[in-house]
């Protein structure tokens, strides 16, 4: 892989047509021979050659990223880059220093591996500028790329190149037996080539079969989301489900936990509250009846007396109508 990037270093984007055929023959030969470099390269050379050719000769999008460092920096500076498709990448680092600019030793590393010297270094005044250009076409090239100024570990900038991450809810999805539910995965502004769903079954991922009796349906309205619809939920359906977004440059995944409850679960607190209400209402109404009876007990005697008095008043009152009227009405206030 390093050999290739060495050949197609910065500046060369296209080869003339005649030269292309030659190169094609060379590549074909290389593909059939055992690998040149590290054993790790063998996987790379076994990739279909046509894809590599297409990648090399089509116009790849260009990604440019910069990191600026100052002399006294305590923590290393990091930058996150999200890539989904094969593209050309230009990483640049700039150091402003008060010391001798020419004495600064600039190195680039991918992870912990030192990259060969095919990067540009410029020094102007107090700044050291370095730029590393390469093409990313597969998942092995993803990772952390760092530029180092000098021997200190702190004077470096790291570019973290990753595929788009999926943002999912961390809360479990709660459903009931017999219900249907939709599990959703989405990522922002990305276009995966493919979405796949798996079910985690005792530390093994089982792909979900959508052709089996309509229980599972996978669809998504937009390219950046996918929905798994599960019908007729049973208690066995509970567990961890994961969705994988497949990109040209790798995969990213997300987990959703599904919890299936039976209807008895919320019924228990409900019945407890209903019982409490029933008991309270009975107690209060019984108290009311009891206090009413207590009040009515001694009062009955008084009312009886009043009735007797009024009866006697009524019988005598025919002559004394006028003054009596006044008396009762003044009492009436």
């Amino acid at each position: 892989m390093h050999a290739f990037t060495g050949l197609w270093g910065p500046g060369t984007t296209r080869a003339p047509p005649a030269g292309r055929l030659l190169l094609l023959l060379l590549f074909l030969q290389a593909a059939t021979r055992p690998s040149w470099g590290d054993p790790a390269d063998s996987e790379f050379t076994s990739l279909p050659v046509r894809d590599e050719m297409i990648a090399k000769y089509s116009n790849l999008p260009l990604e440019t990223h910069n990191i600026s460092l100052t002399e006294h920096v305590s923590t290393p500076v990091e930058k996150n880059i999200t890539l989904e498709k094969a593209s050309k990448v230009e990483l640049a680092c700039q150091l402003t220093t008060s010391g001798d600019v020419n004495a600064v030793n600039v190195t680039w590393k991918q992870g912990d591996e030192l990259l060969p010297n095919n990067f540009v270094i410029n020094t102007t005044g107090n700044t050291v500028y370095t730029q590393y250009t390469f093409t990313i076409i597969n998942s092995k090239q993803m990772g952390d790329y760092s530029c180092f100024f000098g021997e200190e570990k702190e004077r470096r900038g790291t570019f973290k190149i990753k595929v788009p991450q999926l943002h999912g809810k961390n809360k479990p999805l709660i459903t009931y037996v017999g219900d249907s539910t939709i599990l959703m995965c989405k990522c922002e502004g990305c276009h995966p080539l493919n979405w796949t769903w798996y079910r985690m079954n005792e530390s093994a991922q089982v792909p979900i079969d959508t052709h089996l009796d309509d229980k599972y349906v996978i669809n998504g309205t937009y390219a950046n989301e996918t929905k798994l619809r599960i019908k007729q939920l049973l208690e066995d359906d509970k567990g961890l489900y994961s969705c994988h977004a497949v990109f040209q440059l790798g995969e990213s995944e997300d987990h959703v936990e599904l919890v299936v409850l039976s209807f008895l679960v919320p019924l228990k607190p409900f019945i407890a509250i209903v019982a409490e209400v029933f008991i309270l209402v009975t107690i209060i109404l019984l108290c009311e009846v009891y206090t009413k009876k207590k009040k009515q007990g001694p009062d009955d005697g008084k009312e009886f007396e009043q009735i007797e008095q009024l009866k006697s008043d009524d019988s005598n009152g025919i002559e004394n109508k006028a003054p009596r009227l006044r008396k009762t009405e003044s009492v009436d206030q």
Partner: protein
Amino acid sequence: MAKMNRSGSATPPDGGWGWMIVAGCFLVTICTRAVTRCISIFFVEFQTYFSQDYSQTAWIHSIVDCMTMLCAPLGSVVSNHLSCQVGIILGGLLASTGFILSSFATSLKHLYLTLGVLTGLGFALCYSPAIAMVGKYFSRRKALAYGLAMSGSGIGTFILAPVVQLLIERFSWQGALLILGGFVLNLCVCGALMRPLAVKEDHSSPEQNHTCLNEKEDSKRTSPYSPFTKEWVQTCLCGSLQQEYSFLLMTDFVVLAISVLFMAYGCSPLFVYLVPYALSVGVSYQQAAFLMSILGVIDIVGNITFGWLTDRRCLKNYRYICYLFALGLDGLCYLCLPMLQSLALLVPFSCIFGYFDGAYVTLIPVVTAEIVGTTSLSSALGVIYFLHAVPYLVSPPIAGWLMDKTGSYTASFLLCGFSMVFSSVLLGFARLVKKMKRTQLQFLAKESEPKLQLWTNGSVAYSVARELDKKDEEALATAVPGYDLT
């Protein structure tokens, strides 16, 4: 005739079982107003489950609010004719059934019916009777009792919001609605607490009811299936309804009703548009949420403290004016709102507005009771809350439309501010006119002939001398307390 003074004790206890009534009313306000506000927490769940957008799900909240207010008169009719306890227990059962049925809902339309209409109706049967009951049990400490009872909506929202969130997380919206239905069943407990208090009735009403009943019994004895029974029943019913709603013809009440319309129009958009307005002037989302919490908490403080304040002897006779004042100040705050463009200015605004919002909400039942008296309080409150319904429904969309048209919140806030100030000014003006008329006629009464005997401490007056005009008699009735027309 002797039956008139047999009804029992006349004075409200102002304590004792009254505090249990206040606790019951507090719980009623929690279970109705606070639960209504917490229904909006379910909207996100409904949106994902039923795949509908926000405006469709937001209808549920509007339907519940509208039903609770529109059917408030129905609540007072039921509690007047059956009993307060039966009315509230019925309301509790209805609301609880609404929640339980909605946990089985399969579409948004089901939710409109169960969670919207049924639950709203249940709440309506509980709300105004409970508030009226507090008025019957208190007179000296009425405002404090109302303050404590009305603070339930603020405190309830505070407590219920995280609880509902937790329920949704543990049981999903179906289980949460079921458990909330159980919680709302506590309205039955409140209903059981509302022991009826035997209050002295007016002179005319028992007579009418008495004659109605007598006639009914007579006709029943002669022929139970006679066509006349239906007529008697109808006239009796019309008669008793006429009796119950006689306060509708009082000018004081009409003025109060109109002012309530304008007040309800003004106060509702703020709770909907404060956060968007704050965000538009550059306040961060968390600070805007903080403004809303301040509003809620100070609302509770305003409820209780203003209630206690207006119970003090110095302010007791001026409750009407305190109500005017709180309303007017809220309106002025609204008018100043478009000028407040930073967080430092919005915080005091929230405090002042929240305090006086709580204040006048506490005083609405008090002022109504002053105007119509305690016997008609239940029906009057039903009508007052009924008048809240349409402005509540109409005002936020109009404010939103104005905002879309003009591009800023200024127009809608100014409209609401003027509406509230107008309602306060209307009340003040009406009071002023009444006072002027009273002083005029007191003057007139003093100048009248000595033959006109008026017993000021009695309920009967014999006017021996010249006949007074009907209008003057009415005015005299208000000018000279205790004068009764025979």
